[in-house]
């Protein structure tokens, strides 16, 4: 009698606990998939924006979009590694980018990066930390840091757009490990992921 009561208690606790654990694991996997989808679309969108910026003679802005596109590609790849490690298959639904004027494209890009920096990745990070998923924390954190830099660079470009008309392509450097994007390699290691600056890829 005592044994069966104990078994019933264990079974009840397991029934309560298991769905919560399963739900938690699914949540970060869902977040990774959302991140992978978002980054993959951002990559395609920024390349389209770069083409438009070139057409409108904003060479420097086109370079910035190409650099950011490269960074988003790195983030997508990093998310994909974690998704696979968790037993999932990375899936992205690439939508046809909506391309407007370069000014509008910059504003849209700034809005997107700000959302990722302030809302999306902080929430993903909180969830991943709650689940103790350090791989997910790392990939979300590195992406968040790079998105912050992108937001700064886009903001500067929006504020100086008039001056950038007729500008030539500019060199940007993208960390091939974390996607950190900068116009100056004034450090020996990536400030975000500590990768040697030799591993930065020049994009212009």
């Amino acid at each position: 009698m005592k044994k069966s009561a104990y078994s019933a208690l264990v079974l009840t606790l397991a029934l309560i606990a298991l769905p919560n654990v399963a739900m938690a694991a699914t949540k970060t996997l869902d977040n990774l998939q959302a991140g992978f989808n978002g980054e993959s679309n951002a990559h395609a969108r920024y390349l389209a924006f770069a083409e438009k910026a070139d057409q409108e003679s904003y060479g420097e802005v086109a370079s910035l979009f190409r650099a950011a596109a490269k960074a988003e590609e790195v983030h997508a790849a990093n998310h994909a590694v974690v998704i696979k490690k968790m037993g999932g298959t990375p899936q992205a639904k690439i939508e046809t980018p909506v391309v407007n004027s370069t000014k509008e494209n910059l504003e849209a890009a700034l809005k997107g990066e700000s959302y990722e920096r302030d809302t999306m990745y902080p929430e993903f990070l909180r969830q991943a930390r709650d689940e103790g998923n350090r791989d997910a924390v790392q990939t979300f954190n590195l992406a968040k840091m790079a998105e912050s830099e992108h937001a700064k660079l886009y903001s500067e470009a929006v504020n100086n757009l008039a001056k950038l008309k007729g500008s030539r392509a500019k060199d940007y450097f993208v960390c091939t490990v974390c996607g950190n994007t900068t116009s100056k390699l004034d450090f020996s290691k990536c400030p975000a992921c500590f990768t040697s600056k030799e591993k930065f890829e020049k994009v212009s």
Partner: protein
Amino acid sequence: MLQFSAIPSWDALHPLIIHFPIALLLIAPIFIVVGAVLTPAKGRSYLIAAMVLLLVGTASIFVAVETGEAAGKLAERTPGVARVLETHESLAERTQAVFSVLSVIFLALLTVPWLLKASDTRLTTTILPLAFLVLYSAGALLLVNTAHNGGRLVHEFGVRAMVTSAPSDANAALPMETPDRD
């Protein structure tokens, strides 16, 4: 029943490892002073002990730097955190380089006379070790400064290593955003 915790991941080792260089490398000069004050015959064993502390301490700096970089990738950055983390990382690298050089110098100081089969004299067991301590003080200052910046990250900015991989309520108790003290 005795229960053992899971082996920590590489990045989670940082809070544990950092205490080794701090303790070993700040104790080593005490042994050098004792070795230098005693007679050459009696002092030699203290100098050898100092060398062991120096070598193990320096090796632990390498591990501390590597685990620190791994832990740094998990640390959420505010402008304040980013600035202190950058300083901490840069100082750690310099500390690593300085103690590597100090280790080579001290190793040479103790082994060259032995290789030359020269007997211990006041020059080799007192004067040179004390001169070495002057150089050592630069390394010790760097070490303390590095540790201080690491301490600021934890105690001033609330940056924590992810010590466990298991789902835990502990994380819920942490601040979601590390406070920015700018």
